[in-house]
């Protein structure tokens, strides 16, 4: 019972984090703060996916133990079957590994664009940029 409650509580907390970061990206005027909340949004989504792949009785990461670079001995079928019963879901992790690196690539691009904006307009706050550039 208490385990179940804690389980739902973790999910709820992660989703609340997503909510707060979405709101912050939309509302806060400072570009750096927008970017910080953007990274938090990404992180929360990663952790949410990993959380969805975790089962309460799992004790192993999705890596077969006992491997070595030289003279490796592959596990037998029964060992692997026993291993499957105690591991987490690898598929969310597969998606996220590349997503993290691409997230950084996108983020670098955002950073460079912000640097250009700062040099062009002398400010990083979006409301001020609007005043400086004279747009509506």
């Amino acid at each position, binding site marked *: 019972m208490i385990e179940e409650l804690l389980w739902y509580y973790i999910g709820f907390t992660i989703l609340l984090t997503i909510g707060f970061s979405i709101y912050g990206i939309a509302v806060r005027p400072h570009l750096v703060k927008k970017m910080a909340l953007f990274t938090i949004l990404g992180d929360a989504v990663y952790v949410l996916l990993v959380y969805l792949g975790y089962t309460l009785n799992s*004790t*192993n*990461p999705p*890596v077969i*133990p006992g491997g070595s670079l030289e003279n490796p001995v592959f596990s037998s079928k029964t060992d692997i079957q026993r291993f499957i019963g105690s591991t987490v879901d690898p598929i969310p992790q597969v998606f996220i590994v590349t997503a993290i690196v691409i997230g950084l690539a996108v983020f670098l691009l955002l950073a460079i664009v912000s640097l250009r904006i700062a040099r062009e307009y002398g400010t990083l706050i979006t409301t001020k940029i609007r005043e400086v550039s004279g747009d509506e």
Partner: protein
Amino acid sequence: MVSYETLLGVLPVLMSLFTIAMIIYSIRVFTSKTLGSMVLAIDALVVDLVVLMVLVALYYKSAFLLIGVIPLASWVFLLDVVVARYLEKRWSK
């Protein structure tokens, strides 16, 4: 040889100590007034978390979980250096 079950008997006590320390450190992080104090508290917090991570790996009895400990320990130093650079940059202006 001491059995793994004996360890599972004492591990909750040890982990809870570090968890309590983690909570208080993070309260310190959240309530600090200046950037310097905050980063200082984060230093101590991350070192605390390194130990906690090793204990979690011991709990799961999996060597694979130890793999992130060394990058995390060296991250603290990176944070210190970059914050010092940032502050110095503002000072020299």
